């Protein structure tokens, strides 16, 4: 004990922990930024309908997202107001669905590939025509697990 006190007495102060908060704050900001970036920017307005019989999407890496809705104000001039499909972060045609699914699949290990779920985030005011076309494209591509994204309804 006396040893320690002697050292400190010799005016060599403890390592300053003042920079620790800065490091932690840096981590904090990193996580805050990353979690926002991960979600692709929505170019279509999606307001999902309500439902009660819902299943959670378990692992986010096993899920690919498709968005359907009217383009947001910014893109109305170029894309009109008809409901459109968005894959990843850009507008897409139905013919691009197989490639999109394949790209997502190739990132995963062989074992996980049959657990992939497609999450359809569809605006509630969209008509079924476009949804039916997507369903057919998914079936043709062999992607059969589909999750219609919805909000919880208070029953």
């Amino acid at each position: 004990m006396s040893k320690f006190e002697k050292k400190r007495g010799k005016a060599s102060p403890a390592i300053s922990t003042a920079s620790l908060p800065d490091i932690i704050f840096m981590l904090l900001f990193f996580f805050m930024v990353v979690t926002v970036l991960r979600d692709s920017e929505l170019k279509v307005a999606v307001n999902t309908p309500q439902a009660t019989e819902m299943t959670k999407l378990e692992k986010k890496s096993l899920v690919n997202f498709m968005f359907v809705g009217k383009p947001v104000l910014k893109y109305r001039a170029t894309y009109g107001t008809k409901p459109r499909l968005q894959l990843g972060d850009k507008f897409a045609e139905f013919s691009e669905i197989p490639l999109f699914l394949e790209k997502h699949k190739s990132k995963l290990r062989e074992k996980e590939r049959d657990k992939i779920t497609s999450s359809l985030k569809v605006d509630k005011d969209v008509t079924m025509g476009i949804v039916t076309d997507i369903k057919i494209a998914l079936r043709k591509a062999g992607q059969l697990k589909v999750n219609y994204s919805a909000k919880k309804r208070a029953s």
Partner: protein
Amino acid sequence: MGKTSSRDRLSNEINAGSMADIAFLLLIFFLVTTTIAEDKGVLVKLPIWSNEPPPTQKMNTRNVYSVLVNAQNQLLVRGTPMRIDDLKDNTKLFISNPRKEADKAEKPTKAIVSLKNDRGTKYDTYLTVYNELKAAYNELRNEEALKKYGKEFEFLDVEKQRAIRAAIPLVISEAEPTNFGEEG
């Protein structure tokens, strides 16, 4: 006491050590909340695509519960209009057929719910209808679980769940949509 006073004399800085704890708290808060905001939705298994038309099966009409949704978002169930609010209870009655009526399913394993919509049907309506049909099945399974094992379906172990799933299989067959009301 003498110790602390000597330390004070050496360094006059404010102790910033607790700042790290505060930052950690914030960090953990963000970590937790970002994972909590999970996506939920109605899980559906689509049928496998085949180019050949599906084989026409002779079904006893009493076992088929046909639900049609038109472009005006109206429901036609077995030839009669129905409100969406009544759909779940009627579907449950059809599947379980507690009074053994002649126009309802012989037994739950034979029951088929057939859903057909129009390309002009609103997605909201479609999902609500699908949700009601699924709710009917889920409630029946729950009732069966409570009756047989005294526990709710989701709390049963895997084997018992499988037994109930086999007794009340979820069969919602979707037909190719009609195309009357789609806007161009």
